[in-house]
């Protein structure tokens, strides 16, 4: 999702009776549903995994400003513009609380940002796709934020207190984001034939990348099993993806749009929609840096950071001078 393919460092899952001392008490707390707080003892693997997961999530919020920011200056009405500006501002805010949540684990925001810029840390693959029309802004709200909610609602109950609490606030805002996206799609689908074609084109381009956001099937993955035992991953990627498909198909029907999957059909027996095969080669390519916008997105962030160095230096220099002045005045 916003965090994909998160490494846990585990090669084998150990059961409770194989754990002892601090590690056993830690696992018992998690199993009892008691939140872990920053000053509590935690296994190094748990701490590192959470740093990877939360920072990846934070980076996704920050990089995620770019594809939508691409349309703020071209929003078609002043009301749409105001809503989009507020939404993108919320995303910067989500990035801030998530960086702060990760900082409680002993990593600095500067370090996380350096890792993003060097390519060591990842962000969600979805933000490496371009926003080519206004309908893409609707599709992102509807599908990308919709997928984010499916993933993040369970995280409100995850074992790490600061992350769980950040997610509660994030989810409230994401739900507003999803509604605004769907509202854009509705206006387009009720509009002129050209507008409806714009909406269909956006769905065609965003559907598969959105299904890929959940990551490859992880039913057999040690990392996922470890994250599940630690209470920081509560459902498998396939379960979450299925939930997203099931909730979205009726919405597409309501809009009068066609999901670009000839194999999509209701499976009465399972009580779910079956969907076609996902092209995982594309996903891995995007993760490796070959998506349509990987280079542009990272460059935009690196440029912003480098062009802002003088600004940050100036604020520090001013704060130092002020400190010296107050020391001199006190002497």
């Amino acid at each position: 999702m916003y965090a994909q393919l998160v490494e846990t460092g585990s090669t084998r899952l150990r059961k409770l009776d194989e754990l002892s001392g601090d590690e056993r008490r830690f696992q018992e707390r998690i199993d009892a549903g008691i939140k872990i707080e920053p000053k509590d003892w935690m296994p190094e693997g748990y701490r590192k995994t959470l740093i990877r997961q939360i920072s990846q999530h934070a980076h996704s919020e920050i990089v995620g400003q770019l594809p939508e920011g691409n349309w703020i200056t071209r929003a078609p009405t002043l009301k749409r513009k105001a809503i989009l500006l507020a939404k993108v501002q919320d995303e910067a805010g989500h990035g801030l609380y998530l960086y702060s949540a990760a900082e409680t684990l002993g990593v600095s925001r500067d370090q996380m940002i350096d890792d993003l810029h060097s390519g060591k840390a990842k962000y969600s693959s979805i933000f490496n796709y371009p926003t080519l029309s206004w309908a893409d802004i609707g599709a992102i709200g509807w599908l990308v934020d919709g997928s984010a909610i499916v993933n993040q609602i369970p995280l409100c109950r995850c074992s790490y207190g600061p992350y769980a609490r950040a997610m509660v606030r994030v989810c409230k805002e994401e739900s507003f984001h999803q509604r605004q996206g769907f509202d854009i799609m509705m206006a387009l689908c009720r509009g002129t034939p050209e507008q409806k074609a714009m909406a269909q084109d956006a769905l065609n381009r965003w559907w598969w990348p959105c299904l890929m956001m959940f990551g490859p099937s992880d039913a057999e993955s040690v990392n996922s099993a470890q994250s599940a035992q630690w209470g920081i991953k509560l459902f498998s990627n396939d379960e979450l993806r299925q939930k997203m498909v099931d909730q979205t198909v009726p919405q597409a029907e309501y809009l009068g749009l066609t999901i670009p999957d000839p194999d999509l059909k209701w499976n009465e027996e399972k009580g779910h929609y079956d969907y076609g095969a996902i092209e995982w080669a594309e996903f891995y390519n995007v993760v490796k840096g070959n998506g349509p916008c990987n280079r542009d997105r990272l460059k935009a962030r690196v440029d912003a950071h480098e062009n802002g160095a003088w600004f940050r230096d100036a604020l520090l220099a001013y704060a130092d001078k002020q400190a010296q002045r107050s020391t001199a005045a006190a002497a």
Partner: protein
Amino acid sequence: MSNDTVQYLLRLGDNALILSHRLSEWCGKGPALEEDMALANTALDLLGQARLWLSYAGELEDAGRDEDALAYRRNDRQFCNLLLVERPNGSYADTMVRQFFFDAWHHLALQGLCRSADERIAGIAAKAIKEVEYHLRRSSDLVVRLGDGTAQSQKMMQRAVDELWTYTGEMFESDGVDEQAVVAGIGFDPVALREPWLSYVREVLSEATLRIPPADAFMQKGGKQGRHTEALSYLLGEMQYLQRAYPGAQW
């Protein structure tokens, strides 16, 4: 209602709309995450104000034009914002100095408008001034910190002050539209804002260790009358693209 009142409201709305647009161009590209959020916040405040002014202008004009018709279907010669607000963003130093010059004027202008005999104008101004007090506090504070920061930041800020100064004179020029607003008791006299503006700006720039350019420097003007810099028509080309490409569509 006279055309002058409509024109007066369009000037207020266009200033807020165009500056909001410029600030929103920074989205995701600011020098720090906190700055991205603060700029988006200022852009949103100004956009909200623009919508109130333009909607009222449209109602008084009574020609069936709403806020969107006024924002999206006028040409650059029909826009009457100050030249200052349409100037390109440049570096963050240029953006902050532009903001500071405008905020200092905007705050004084809104104080005048809060006393307007037109209740709707006074009401919009009363709402806007609360936001603009914060904009001014923030931009003044940043001007001081960046001016008195490093040698590089001081140089960048001084250059921005020197470059943008020529666009400040227009804020204090009165024409027939302004005079009519004063006579009708609905607006303020721009000439009267010059001294308090200069005095405030002088104080902040001095704390920022920046030189204030001469008050009698040559000043560009024309924005209020629809004669703009080359920058505006590109801005409008971008802003109005969808409404122009799909006339009559509902969004």
